[in-house]
């Protein structure tokens, strides 16, 4: 048990030290990784733990981003309240959308999540008066008590660490265990007495809340929100991050986010052909490393004198 705890704590310590490098680049990258890490972990609650393939997770990220930004700029709502509202709205929309989606399975489920995400995208794209349309919602104010990028980094670190702590508890709880049985065999789970759709819906809601929180942080961090964070390739991107890190590991998705963001940053400074590299990497991953980075590492560690 404690072995599983001190590795993440070590990472948190390392992350705390990043601003000490006095490098703007690393602080920015770090904030990005934390935000997308939380986004990816929230998706993995559905994907890796419950076995639900959502092709529209960007919906809640976007709803969180727009809600927080709009409330802060247009209604001058103080940040803590706007942030909480973003999370709440993410949860509520996940509840509504999820209610319809969990009635379906597999491909149909994925397509409905995609359809809803496109509806929300279309709304953000066209509702110029509220969201600024395709010109984006700009000039989002930075919360006053966090007026430096470093402070914002620490704040993000705190929020993400706290969220991960909570999510970890949920995943290791009886509820979390039932989610994995649903992933393994929904029919059997139904016949040990579980209302499977209800559990899937609750998982959907929880993941929506945390995705929205990540989105809210994103909107503030970038001082702006554009509709393309709702467009379906954004949902595909977070899926890729999650898969890259490893869907059967709790921290896998963050590792995936970190690697993807870092590599993308490096590659795009040399060439504009990032998509083809991403495509080949993804294909390579799918064929040879289905467990992702964490899956690969865990298999490696287990092998020498392993007791599995």
């Amino acid at each position, binding site marked *: 048990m404690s072995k599983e705890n001190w590795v993440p704590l070590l990472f948190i310590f390392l992350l705390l030290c990043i601003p000490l490098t006095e490098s703007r680049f690393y602080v920015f990258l770090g904030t990005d990784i934390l935000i997308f890490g939380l986004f990816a972990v929230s998706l993995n609650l559905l994907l890796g733990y419950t076995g639900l393939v959502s092709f529209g997770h960007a919906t809640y990220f976007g709803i969180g981003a727009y809600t927080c930004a709009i409330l802060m700029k247009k209604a001058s709502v103080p940040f803590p309240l706007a942030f909480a509202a973003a999370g709440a709205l993410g949860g509520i929309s996940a509840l509504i959308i999820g209610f319809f989606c969990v009635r379906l399975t597999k491909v149909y489920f994925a*397509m*409905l999540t995609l*359809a809803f995400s496109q509806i929300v995208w279309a709304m953000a794209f066209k509702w110029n008066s509220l969201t600024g349309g395709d010109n984006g919602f700009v000039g989002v104010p930075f919360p006053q008590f966090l007026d430096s990028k470093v402070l914002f980094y620490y704040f993000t670190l705190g929020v993400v660490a706290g969220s991960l702590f909570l999510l970890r508890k949920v995943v290791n709880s009886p509820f979390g265990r039932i989610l994995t049985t649903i992933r393994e065999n929904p029919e059997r789970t139904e016949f040990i007495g579980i209302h499977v759709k209800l559990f899937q819906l609750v998982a959907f809601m929880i993941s929506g809340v945390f995705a929205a929180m990540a989105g809210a942080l994103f909107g503030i961090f970038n001082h702006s929100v554009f509709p393309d964070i709702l467009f379906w390739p954004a949902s595909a991107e977070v899926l890729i991050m999650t898969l890259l890190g490893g869907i059967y590991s709790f921290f896998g998705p963050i590792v995936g986010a970190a690697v993807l963001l870092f590599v993308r940053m490096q590659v795009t400074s040399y060439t504009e052909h990032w*998509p*083809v590299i991403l495509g*080949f990497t*993804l*294909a390579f991953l*799918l*064929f040879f490393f289905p467990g992702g980075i964490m899956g690969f590492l865990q298999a490696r560690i287990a092998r020498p004198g392993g007791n599995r």
Partner: protein
Amino acid sequence: MPLRLSLFRGNKAMPDPSFLLLQSLNGLTYAMFLFLIASGLSLIFGILGILNFAHGSLYMLGAYFTQQFVSLFIDAPGQFWWAVLFASLTIAAIGAVIERFFLSHLYAREELYQLLFTYALVLILADFAKIIWGTGQFSVSRPALLKGAVPILDQFFPTYNVVIIFLGPCIAFTFWFTLLRTRWGRKIRAAALDREMLSSLGVHVNRLFTVVFFIGAWMAGLGGALVSPVSAIVPGMDVEVIINAFIVVVIGGLGSFWGTFLGSLIVGQVYALGILVFPRLSLAFIYVLMALVLIIRPWGLLGRPLQR
């Protein structure tokens, strides 16, 4: 929308009936292109159980290759139609190669891996197109015979489009007839019903799958080839068309042939006329339709109802 649909700018009285008719005919033309891609998509889903994200990319490559072959066959008689033939067959071959050497290795895995592989292909193929042909816009001129326009009431409608409108159902009937009557066709229909049974009957399922993918890709390539004179050949046409193709197969019913035809007609008309009726909501409307079908009748208008 790829077609040059003229937008009705005034909004006072009822639009002129000949204008409405023209819009509707444009929608019908677009529907035929959608039908070609969507039927390939539906066929692949019905037999292989894979939702091929890369189908839009195959369509796009069909257009690019047509453009390439046209400039290769310059001044040859019937250059356009030869180009269409060569281009669509090239795409079919590419599809067969993808299925045979890559996709087939993922059949044992969960659907997520197959889906994401097709998405990886989208990334790769899109960038390939950019590398080979650059980011500029191409177009192909209509075949000399069909350069004119036909008078409809008091407007003019391009002859080429008329041909497409008739060609669409012809191809549809040929296709459907082949499925019904030929040996390969019967095997394909049987495979749609029970894959496992088929392999135990000694049918070469692997070869069958490659043939199905070849045909599906050929349809997409043909769609792209035929659309090249009426639409700009430009990066991004893959992403735009695949979403519309998804909508078509969802509305019509995944795996249903006539459903795809019906779905294409509906989507075509919604795009053509929707922008006149609700200009602001038109973007979201098609996705709302998709969501409604999935919620109320997930198997689409003509699909097979899912059992409980």
